[in-house]
């Protein structure tokens, strides 16, 4: 069971309080009507699925209820950083994966 730092509770909490929410920073187009079929299909279905650092959404559903974003290394399953929804993806410093 991972510990996930909730950026709203400002506390590390057990994974069982959270729900995964898919890739982060997939922005819903402001004017969907003006989006081409191909771009709309990409918005609906195309996801990154990287090996390594992945920006993803989580919700502290059995806690404060907030959606937020996390940078997780999909190889080591380490969550390296969490940050509020709607803020840009932070840069990781060189030591981010050394532990905490």
């Amino acid at each position: 069971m991972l510990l996930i730092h909730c950026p709203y509770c400002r506390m590390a909490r057990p994974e069982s309080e959270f729900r995964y929410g898919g890739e982060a920073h997939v922005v819903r187009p402001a004017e969907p009507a003006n989006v081409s079929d191909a771009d709309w299909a990409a918005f609906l279905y195309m996801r990154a699925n990287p090996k390594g650092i992945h920006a993803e959404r989580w919700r502290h559903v059995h806690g404060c209820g907030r959606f937020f974003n996390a940078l997780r290394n999909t190889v080591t399953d380490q969550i390296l950083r969490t940050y509020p929804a709607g803020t840009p993806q932070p840069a990781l410093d060189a030591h981010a994966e050394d532990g905490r």
Partner: protein
Amino acid sequence: MADRIVGRRSVLDGLVLPARNGIVSVIEATPAARFIYRGDPGLIGDAFGIALPTTPMQARASGARAALWLGPDEWLLLAAASEATTVAAAVAGKPAALVDVGHRQVGLSVSGPRAAALLNAGCPLDLDEAEFPVGMCTRTILAKAEIVLWRTASDAFRMEIARSFAPYVVAFLVEALHGIDR
């Protein structure tokens, strides 16, 4: 609000609550008026009698009233059952949300020297008093149910449970008590 033609029935009616002398006891919390307030905490001002805590996971209480931080824009307000209309009126007309949840959930008081140990049979949080001090509150889980947990004293907690999950939570605590050392 005195005599109803029909009576109120708690979901806990008829359930045997777990207790062991001098170790831990679980009792139903007094029926209360309960509201969820969502929105700008400043809007409510002192209309509720308690300023809404904006520090995460903090509860403030005064008499029968309490305001529990559940999220950055969500508070659980507790008051005596008789004060329901007063509380509702205090927030009326504000661009915020006040929703009556007085029957949505039930309260349990868990107290005694082994209260934290009993809760830790199903709650994954660290309930050591240094980590979860008096006045801290949060939504969390107890076994397979969601609860709101609030430490009201060194050896006492109040739990708020969604109505239909209450029989499960009580049965779980009855079971868990078998695992608590004398």
